[in-house]
């Protein structure tokens, strides 16, 4: 019984934890501009993140080594440092976007300008990292994030023409109001939002934090294989709401306040309240995960003591580095840089940097020295290599598409 509860809790937190500011914004933008015609990318991204999380979780549980320890060992200091630099920079950008997202959500609740909320949001993120136990932190954020299910409910309440939505989703075509380069630019962005690298740093370091062993692998696999696809459905619902309400009105999403309007339209104030709680929980949870991930990546590369299972005094550099990251995010946001714009760039750069972490994990997951008999099975390897090609294509295509389309303008 207890085990069953554990599995249920794991799946629920995986669902609630899947969506972050990147998924929210990108899906709503795409829904409002392309209808359901880019939804197939969410499917591709979800399968990818399941594969990636499965491999990195297995590496962490079997070898006890987290992602960046492995990356440095395998790539050596020079390529490892280049990898760290790129991954850390994108992660920091994501921290900034998530903290900005918390503040924007608070503005929607209180109508107090988001810039005033930013210091409080950053402080709250730090305080939770400083004091709250890893498990509690994960479960509370994940469960509250489930409030986002209201986007799915809203989609039903809106009583859309399901045939038309399904038609857009199943036979995708570039809408007449858009051109093909912009379509593919957002395809890359949506892929990057679904497969953000921080999820993998966090997932594998979390496996070490929680002391996973081989026997926990089955449960982790269930969490991933059930939780992430259901989380992906939430993303689809967000896009669907935008496609049904905003697209016909000629509205193209550029702010968080537009994303929740369809929910209010469908379900009134109560639904809106759920959506806001869900967005707050999702951005706050992701702010915790990305901040921790920046500490994890640095500490693992340089061999510092790390982990929330230790008191801050026994992981001093780890905690200091996270404080510095939050201060940098605070500084960037204080300049008035638009958090939504930062989010849009962060998902695209996530796609650019993805091969840097994917490839080493794929190699180590096939290395019997680390993995013993738990190396990738043949089936996983076939899928993982197909995804390597997809990830490389998205990574190489991202910057040219960004330049050609003026970042999707």
């Amino acid at each position, binding site marked *: 019984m207890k085990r069953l509860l554990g599995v249920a809790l794991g799946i629920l937190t995986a669902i609630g934890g899947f969506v972050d500011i990147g998924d929210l914004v990108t899906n709503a933008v795409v829904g409002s501009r392309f209808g359901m015609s880019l939804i197939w990318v969410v499917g591709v991204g979800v399968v990818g993140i399941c594969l990636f999380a499965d491999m990195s979780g297995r590496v962490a549980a079997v070898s006890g080594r987290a992602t960046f320890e492995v990356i440095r060992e395998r790539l050596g200091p020079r390529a490892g440092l280049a990898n760290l630099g790129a991954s850390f920079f994108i992660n920091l950008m994501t921290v900034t976007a998530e903290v900005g997202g918390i503040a924007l959500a608070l*503005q929607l609740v209180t109508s107090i300008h988001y810039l005033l909320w930013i210091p409080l949001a950053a402080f709250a993120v730090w305080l939770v990292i400083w004091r709250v136990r890893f498990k509690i932190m994960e479960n509370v954020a994940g469960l509250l994030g489930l409030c986002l299910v209201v986007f799915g409910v809203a989609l039903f309440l809106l009583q859309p023409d399901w045939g038309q939505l399904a038609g857009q989703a199943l036979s995708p075509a570039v809408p007449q*109001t*858009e051109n093909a380069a912009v379509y593919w630019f957002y395809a890359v962005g949506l892929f990057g939002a679904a497969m953000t690298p921080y999820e993998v740093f966090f997932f594998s370091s979390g496996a070490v934090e929680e002391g996973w062993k081989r026997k926990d692998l089955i449960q982790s696999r269930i969490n991933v294989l059930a939780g992430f696809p259901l989380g992906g459905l939430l993303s689809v619902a967000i896009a669907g709401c935008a496609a049904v309400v905003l697209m016909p009105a*000629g*509205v193209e999403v550029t702010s968080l*306040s537009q994303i929740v*309007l369809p929910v*209010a339209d469908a379900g*009134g104030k109560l639904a809106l309240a759920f959506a806001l709680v869900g967005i707050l929980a999702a951005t706050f949870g992701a702010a915790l995960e990305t901040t921790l991930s920046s500490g994890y990546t640095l500490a693992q590369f340089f061999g510092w003591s790390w982990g929330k299972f230790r008191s801050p005094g026994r992981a001093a550099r780890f905690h200091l580095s996270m404080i510095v990251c939050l201060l940098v995010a605070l500084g960037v946001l204080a300049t008035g840089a638009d958090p939504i714009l930062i989010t849009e760039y962060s998902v695209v750069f996530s796609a650019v940097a993805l091969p840097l972490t994917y490839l080493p994990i794929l190699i180590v997951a096939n290395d019997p020295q680390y993995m013993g008999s738990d190396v990738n099975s043949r089936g996983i390897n076939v899928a993982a290599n197909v995804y390597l090609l997809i990830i490389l294509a998205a990574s190489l295509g991202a910057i040219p598409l960004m330049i050609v389309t003026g970042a999707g303008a």
Partner: protein
Amino acid sequence: MAATAVNQGSSAVGTSVLALDLLARERAGTPAVGTSLEDMAGELEDARKGLLDSVPATAAERGLHREVISALVRAEAALGLARQALAAKDSRGDTADTPGFRAAQTALAASAKELKGLRQRLGTGR
């Protein structure tokens, strides 16, 4: 350039119409609607400034620019009315059924129609 600005303006006005409509039907509260209107005021200003920064090449283009800019200015005025009405509602506890609100809704609807017409004429510029 003009097409991009029309697109952006049309999106902002469409959002404002929707937000005011939700307020009138009591489906969303003042904080969410107020934030929407504030964000959209920023969008309209962006659109107008973006257009002012570009230099039209031909006389026909110059005429078009002037036309779009005046449409955007009208949209900003309509949005201003809506924000005033919202502020009045907030401070006096009015319902959403005051003359001020109805005037704002009418002005925004007219703006939406005007920008939609321009959008159909110019395309999205993509």
